[in-house]
């Protein structure tokens, strides 16, 4: 991605503990040293645990915003409050904009791509357990709004495989990218995985060895009892407590040192805090001991802190170590009895997209929610496409379910009945190519013959999208449907107004039945 609009692509990478890095492209495959990305207040940007990043205009202001997906919480974005060539990111993240009722987006990574070919980038998301889903963008390309997840690849499950066996599917923590990998005109899925295979570390345990292993495990259980964990937890609590003044120290060092050392304000007196403290002492002509002594406290304006706390920290840490040592020794003793080893792999999988089965609209239409329902007639309707390419054909199905004993009439006018009619209102340039009415059942009523439909009937209309339709635009189709439904001597009139919109895409459209007409 070209981070700074200098015409050279850059690499931007998330990392395990939320930090995000930029490697500026220098051209000819060369990149500058990594730079930690910071927000407008110069604090490091936090993308989430094991985050992955994308740059995308989220708010139609012409610059690129920073979008982060991560393994344990919702995907989010930081607004670019700078410019396209000098990005500057807001310090507060926002959640991704979702359509009403669409939930939220979580995943191990999120790839932006126009999955359905409607000219707007959608979101394809890899997940912790390997499932791949996509969220359709129902907003604009540069002001997205995402719909609920639809599954593309199922969760592979956790079938253990032996080292050397050929796996059937990818493993967990899928990182996905979308590309027409084999140049056949259909978008494919490439994904990276994490798969752990088992292998035998040693010959099976003898009876004697099994007994010894069991004894060691029992010893470990006895050691790690409730009192053990209670003390471990209590020590952690005490540690947090005595570390509180260190938080003040870290904040003071961040504020007083120029440039700021950007210490993580975590209350831990670690090597970085110590180095920054020594630096402060040198600058203030104090003995650069790295010790949090009284003179340093005074210079930092932190008189309420107790240097004695550092000794307490050391004491707590020593006790923690002492507590854990016997268990660690037992773990060491158990090692030779381990019979199964695990080897990690990260493979790159290619899932080739196959052409869609021709949609059986007449069948599919029966599964959608009714557009209108009366006591006698239920009307359903469904489009063959959610998006079409300019000049491409698409179909609309109208299905009538007619109550037992009742019938409606065919489309032709007659003297003794009112026909079923569909009055289309089509966008400019969209043509109705054909309309197929099933053959009606003829009944005689006195002198005349009437064409009728009983039970169920599906009418298929075929349209051609305008050749000059602009990608990203919408074709809004409307129809007014009128019918007369009769039984013996009783007749009722019915009507419905239908509306649907189909997006115009840039390329060969993907058929989908996922968007029923209203």
């Amino acid at each position, binding site marked *: *991605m070209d981070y700074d609009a200098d015409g050279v*692509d850059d*690499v*931007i*990478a998330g*990392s*395990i503990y939320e*930090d995000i890095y930029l490697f500026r*492209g220098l*051209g000819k495959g*060369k*990149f*500058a*040293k*990594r730079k*930690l990305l910071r927000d407008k207040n110069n604090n490091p940007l936090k993308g989430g645990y*094991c985050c*992955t990043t*994308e740059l*995308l205009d989220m708010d139609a202001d012409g610059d690129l915003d920073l979008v982060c997906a991560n*393994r*344990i*919480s919702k995907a989010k974005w930081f607004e670019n409050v700078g410019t396209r060539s000098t990005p500057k990111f807001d310090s507060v993240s926002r959640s991704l904009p979702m359509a009403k009722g669409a939930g939220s987006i*979580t995943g191990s*990574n999120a790839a*932006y791509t126009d999955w359905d070919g409607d000219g707007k980038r959608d979101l394809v998301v890899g997940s*912790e*357990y390997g499932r791949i*889903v996509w969220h359709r963008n129902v907003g604009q390309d540069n002001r997205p709004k995402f719909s*609920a997840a*639809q*599954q*593309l690849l199922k*969760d592979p499950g956790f079938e253990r495989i032996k080292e050397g066996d050929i796996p059937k*599917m*990818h*493993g967990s923590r899928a*990182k996905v*990218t979308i*590309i027409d*990998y084999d*140049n*056949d005109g259909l978008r*494919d899925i490439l994904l*990276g*995985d994490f*798969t752990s295979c088992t292998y035998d570390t040693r010959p099976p345990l003898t009876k004697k060895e099994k007994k010894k292993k069991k004894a060691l495990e029992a010893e470990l259980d006895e050691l790690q009892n409730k009192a053990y964990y209670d003390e471990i937890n209590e020590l952690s609590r005490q540690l947090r407590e005595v570390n509180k003044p260190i938080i003040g120290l870290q904040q003071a060092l961040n504020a007083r040192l120029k440039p700021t050392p950007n210490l993580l304000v*975590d209350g831990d007196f670690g090597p970085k805090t110590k180095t920054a403290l020594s630096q402060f002492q040198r600058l203030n002509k104090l003995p650069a001991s790295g010790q949090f002594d009284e003179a340093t406290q005074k210079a930092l304006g932190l008189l309420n802190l107790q240097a004695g706390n550092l000794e307490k920290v050391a004491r707590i840490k020593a006790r923690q170590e002492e507590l854990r040592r016997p268990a660690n020794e037992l773990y060491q003793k158990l090692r030779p009895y381990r019979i199964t080893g695990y080897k990690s*792999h*990260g*493979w*790159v*999988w*290619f899932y080739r*997209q196959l*052409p869609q089965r021709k949609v059986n609209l007449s069948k599919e239409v029966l599964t959608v929610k009714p557009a209108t329902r009366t006591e006698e007639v239920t009307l359903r309707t469904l489009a063959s496409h959610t998006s079409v390419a300019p000049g491409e054909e698409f179909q609309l199905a109208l299905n009538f379910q007619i109550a037992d004993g009742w019938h409606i009439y065919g489309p032709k006018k007659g003297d003794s009945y009112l026909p079923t009619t569909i009055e289309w209102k089509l966008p400019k340039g969209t043509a109705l190519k054909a309309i197929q009415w099933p053959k009606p059942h003829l009944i005689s009523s006195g002198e005349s013959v009437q064409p009728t439909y009983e039970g169920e009937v599906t009418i298929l209309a075929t349209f051609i999208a305008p050749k000059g339709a602009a990608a990203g635009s919408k074709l809004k189709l409307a129809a007014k449907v009128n019918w007369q439904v009769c039984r013996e001597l009783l007749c009722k009139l019915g009507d419905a107004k239908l509306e649907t919109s189909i997006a115009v895409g840039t390329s060969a459209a993907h*058929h*989908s*039945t*996922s968007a029923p007409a209203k």
Partner: protein
Amino acid sequence: MKRQFWFSGLSVALVCLVTTHSLHAQRGSKIPLDTYRFAPGVRLLTGDKPIDVTTGHASPYVYDFNGDGKRDLLVGEFGSGTYRGETTSKSSLANARLRVYLNKGSNALPRYDGFKYLQADGENASVPST
């Protein structure tokens, strides 16, 4: 380097080992199946062996890295060694790197034979993992 296609980010996805607190958000939740169909997955090869990154956790991306008109494969990998660059973390960290597999085949039938790590400032470009 010219942009070859309009994916919005050249990103390296990074990863980590600890599984105990993995999320359960998507597992078992009802997500409707879409109608797209795929051939069974196959692993991409380098030479005649599956591409396999250090300690698992691969993250692929497709991009014409050397500007020869053929799309190459970039794969983010977990980590090894000790990370010594800038970080806000106090934990001990490993180097996660990015592999560049140049395409020795064509765009319709890519073929790879080995990789080089992405270089930045004269060394392997790396970001923290564990």
